[in-house]
């Protein structure tokens, strides 16, 4: 057998690559924290529910969670603007180099972070190293209908485009790569480029406030690139140099 000894090469920071490919803008000022994205994501990506005890112990499987904090005490109490936190699809992702088996790996063609479920051996190092804490682990066999008989009928809802994960596997937001792939495939079959706004992840699709915008960040005319150009924009934990692909627009009274 001819063995290909080529190891995936970690990309350098050439200007071109820094431009990125897919990106997201989340406007915290109009996010109402309604959790539609959370539910939509779960339905699209076959995310299991874990039950009350595990949910209360930090084992929820949400790929996107909405954070909020309290400031001050009554009556001057304020809630910080809702902040949906999902995988930031870092260009220089801390989760990637620590995986011993390349299960957490960068997709060079799409410039997003991948989690290859079937390669994952469950060391959970990537989750430790993720500064955003957006990786979730299948602590139990949450999807096994033999162990959870209530799933027998519920599993009819599973999306056939997305792998159903079993115990011991790390997972995270994929920017709905099945939708990206589907749209790319359609565009290719029609002999054209992917149009702006054609790829819509489940969260952005559901968001009643239209607070989530998704698209190509390397295209300066795309909706997402335009939305990101504002003084309100920032990246989460920018100081770590992870080059996230999700831009947050600050909430509150900033113009």
């Amino acid at each position, binding site marked *: 057998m001819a063995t290909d000894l080529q190891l995936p090469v970690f990309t350098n920071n050439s200007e071109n690559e820094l431009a990125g490919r897919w990106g997201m803008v989340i406007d915290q*000022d109009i996010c*109402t*924290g*309604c*959790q*539609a994205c*959370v*539910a939509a994501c*779960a*339905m*699209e990506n076959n995310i299991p*529910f874990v*039950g*009350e*005890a595990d*949910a*209360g*112990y*930090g084992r*929820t499987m*949400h790929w996107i*969670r*909405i*954070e*909020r*904090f*309290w400031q001050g*005490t*009554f*009556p001057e*109490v*304020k*809630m910080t603007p*809702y902040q949906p936190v999902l995988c930031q699809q870092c260009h220089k992702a801390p989760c990637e180099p620590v995986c011993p088996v390349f299960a957490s790996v960068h997709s060079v063609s799409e410039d997003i972070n991948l989690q290859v*479920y*079937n390669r994952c051996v469950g060391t959970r190092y990537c989750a430790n190293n993720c500064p955003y804490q957006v990786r979730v682990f299948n602590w139990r066999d949450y999807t*096994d*209908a033999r162990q959870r008989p*209530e*799933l*027998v*009928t*519920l*599993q*009819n*809802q*599973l*999306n*056939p485009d997305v792998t*159903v*994960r079993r115990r011991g*596997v790390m997972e995270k937001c994929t920017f709905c790569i099945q939708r990206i792939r589907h749209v790319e495939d359609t565009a290719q079959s029609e002999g054209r480029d992917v149009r702006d706004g054609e790829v819509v992840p489940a969260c952005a*699709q*559901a*968001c*009643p*406030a*239209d*607070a989530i915008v998704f698209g190509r960040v390397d295209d300066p005319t795309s909706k997402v690139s335009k939305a990101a150009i504002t003084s309100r924009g920032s990246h989460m934990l920018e100081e770590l140099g992870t080059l996230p692909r999700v831009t947050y627009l600050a909430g509150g*009274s900033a113009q």
Partner: protein
Amino acid sequence: MSQQISRRDFLKLAGVGAATTAVLTGCGPASRYVTRAPYIKMPEYTYNGLSTFYATTCRECSAGCGLVIRTMQGRAIKVEGNPDHPVNLGKTCARGQATLHGLYNPDRITDPIQRVARGSEGGTKMDWDAAIGIVADALSKNKPDEIAFLVGMAPDHLFDLVADLAKTIGAPAPVRYGALGMFEARTTLVKAAEETFGQTGLPFFDIGGADLVISFGANFLETWLSPVAQTREFSKMRRGQKNKRGYLVQFESRMSQTGAKADEWIPITPGTEAMVALAIGRLIVEARGLALPPAFANVDVNGVVEASGVTLDALNRVAGLFSLYDRPLVIPGGGALGLSNGLQTAEAALALNALAGNFGKDGGVFISPTNPLADQYHRPASGREMQDFIQRMVDGKIKVLFVHGVNPLFELPKKLGFGGATKYVPQIISFATFPDETAMEADYVFPDHHGLESWGYQKIATGSASSVLSGAQPVIVPFFNTKSTVDVLLAAAQKAGGALASAFPFKDEVEFMDSKLASLLNVDGFFSAPEINTFAAYFQQYGGWWKTTDNRIAPSSADVLNRSFKADAAQFDGQGDFFFVPFVSPILGEAGANKPWLQEVPDPTTTIMWNTWVEINPATADKLGIEDNDVVRVVSDYGEVEVSVYKYPAIRPDTIAMPFGQGHTAYGQFAQGRGANPADLFGPSVNEAGDLAFGSLKVRIEKTNKKRQLSRLEGVLGVYGFDSK
């Protein structure tokens, strides 16, 4: 197959044997020995391996958002919003997303059942012919005025049929009820509009057109009226305008999700909203140096400051906002209306709108468009009407009760006595899809299809500027041996014979729908068609029919300001120390508790999952020696519940709050025995409009020395510091 295949037959044939076993085996190469069953007869518009999308209407609440369901090989896979639908424009809420967990819920009632004894689990299975016979007997063998229909809030084709049916046999009109209607205080809104404008209809608040929104308790981002539409409008208000950011002020005693989005959240003593509104009006008039109109003449600003706990500065600031912004809008709603003076609050808020001069203008107040199929707005039953209904039951005036789409045993306050009244009704027939509390008490359960398996239309009450009739169609073949209630009633009418049979000569519900839709032929709208088959085909394809014009009705506002408004302090029942603020869980709504994924979606403000909590101000809790997760007993004059404590920073110290949505005693494995129901505490008092004054309660708290851990998404260590547990 020789005869003409109706549209429904076609779908039925198409889906039989669709593959369900593949793709389910998970992350491992274990799928080798699965089998694949191809379609017997594939629908012609379906391709192997490609999804098929069906437009339909969401039935999770009565707002009626348009959905597009992605299906594959006969299975419903994903809920997406219908981008054309004027109510939601392609967006959905969490409840809408989880509707598939209702469709494929493991606890659904699979067959028609005759209960051995009321309240007992299960029962003997029947076949549908026998079931139809029982319905036919019930319709024909009872005196017409002893037949009662109790249906859900959504004004759909079933409601039309039942209304027609009742009219034909001479029975009392069907009663529509839903807990959301109670918490929204729709009757109060409608009554206030009627008194203020002299016009019947549900007020429409054009949030998207406004640049300043002042809300008195209206939780319009959560469950109030049409949340998805209002969220979209909110987003337009906040960031959709050029060079201007919309401003939201929220008056309420407990910070709701809407309050969390407010730029200014002003805690206010419950029941003082009306006077605060009038005081703001007076301050505006005074600041502008105008003559004081009678509307605001009676209010004493200093007295208001004292009663409401809102500082004069705050009142002045809010009054000042009216001059800073071009299109202010005042919304009364939710908890503020469910008080003994709720009608006053609604009217005072409308008076403020009148002062802002925004009746019938962009960013102002309208009357919601009337529906294409209705001449005027039919509001659901108010609390008082439900009390009358229950009284009729107790008096033995109801011999047979048909229940569909509503779960009065859970949704009505226990104190109203529906549970006790059922024993005076000899025959209760439920059409419930799920084994809810009322279905458990019914003699017969003839399960209806899930919303995604059934045909129908829904008359949209509000949420869109145009008049909308939303369409529904089955997206999959019925998963269980259920039958559409409309079909059951139509078949029963045929079986009963006589006038009934001739009044309803329809083969099935699609024909019935067509008969109703016929009035829309050749009417200008999103599409129009000259004959019914074309129209019906478009109707299914686009998920409904709607006008493309602005059909909102501008209210007449001539002399609102010259009326005199009252603003009394609200009356509170009971001797407790705390005001009680019940609110509908924004995630679960009234009927979401049986969907596991909704249970696991965290509450937006507290991030609690899977349970009920009571919100207490941390300072109050410390004073009482109560910690997070302590179980306390909340006691009102009418009942008590035991519930875990959540120390909520944004609630008045003299107020406690509890979400509605849990506390089921039936309703499937995910809902049963989980949490507590705040409606158990409610009293029977109603406000002037007849809506239940559910918030007019004073309760007290008793410690129980028990602890029950609440499941939170938030990490307590990080959000509240190391010291808290």
